[in-house]
């Protein structure tokens, strides 16, 4: 774990920045504005075309993957400090970064095969 620690901190920072800059607007639109009818949700054909554009694929990959690594790193320490699970260090690290890797693989697969 020691050798890749700087990489994990970098992913935490970059993922946290991506999450701070972009998640509020996406969550507000997808989770609140569209379901509550504040604005009309985009039509299927429009989103389908948008998502198959190479720039959108890359954007969505970044938008999903990097915040997941931000979560993995921060949640790992939340569990250590908050719940005092210091004896489970390795198990927690494997589960957190493993989940982030799994989500990244799913995003890559979906974005690669869509359209």
């Amino acid at each position, binding site marked *: 774990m020691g050798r890749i620690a700087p990489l994990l901190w970098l992913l935490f*920072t970059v*993922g*946290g*920045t991506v*999450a*701070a*800059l*972009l*998640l*509020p*607007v*996406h*969550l*507000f*639109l*997808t*989770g*609140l504005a*569209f*379901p*509550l009818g504040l*604005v009309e*949700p*985009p*039509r*299927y054909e*429009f*989103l*389908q075309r*948008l*998502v198959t554009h190479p720039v959108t694929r890359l954007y*969505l990959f970044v*938008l*999903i*993957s990097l*915040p*997941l690594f*931000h*979560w993995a790193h*921060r*949640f790992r*320490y*939340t569990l250590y*400090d*908050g*719940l*005092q699970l*210091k*004896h489970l*260090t390795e198990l927690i690290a494997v589960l957190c970064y493993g*989940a982030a890797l799994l*989500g990244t693989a*799913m*995003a890559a697969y*979906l*974005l690669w*095969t*869509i*359209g």
Partner: protein
Amino acid sequence: MSAEPHYTLYHPRWYRRRVSVWWWLQNRAYAGFVVRELTSVFVAYFAVLYLWQLRALAQGPEAYAQFLARLRTPLFVALDTVAFLFVLFHAITWFNLAPKAMVLRLAGTRVPDRVVVGLNYALWLALSAAAAWVLLRG
């Protein structure tokens, strides 16, 4: 005693006072810290939500309509309201900490914290407006 002392990452023999799992409820600053740490759970929730949406889009118009209908249920509206507030808290605390995390220098003088924070908020507004503009054209 062996010649080489055995080092461990933790020192179970040290005396440690037991601290309650709820230590962070004793004081506002501690509670703020833990709430900030918990924002990460909702950051991960967003990733799952978008993976779900992508899968619905890949499966076709019916699956997408079903996805939209599911998000209109009170359970998801409530969950997304909470998630939005946590993600907003993450964004605000993240921008306000930016000048402390990275000191910016221009021509030898430190760029004032207010300016760094202001630039972060300006970038946030610009990117949010751009993302909304792209999504709302459809």
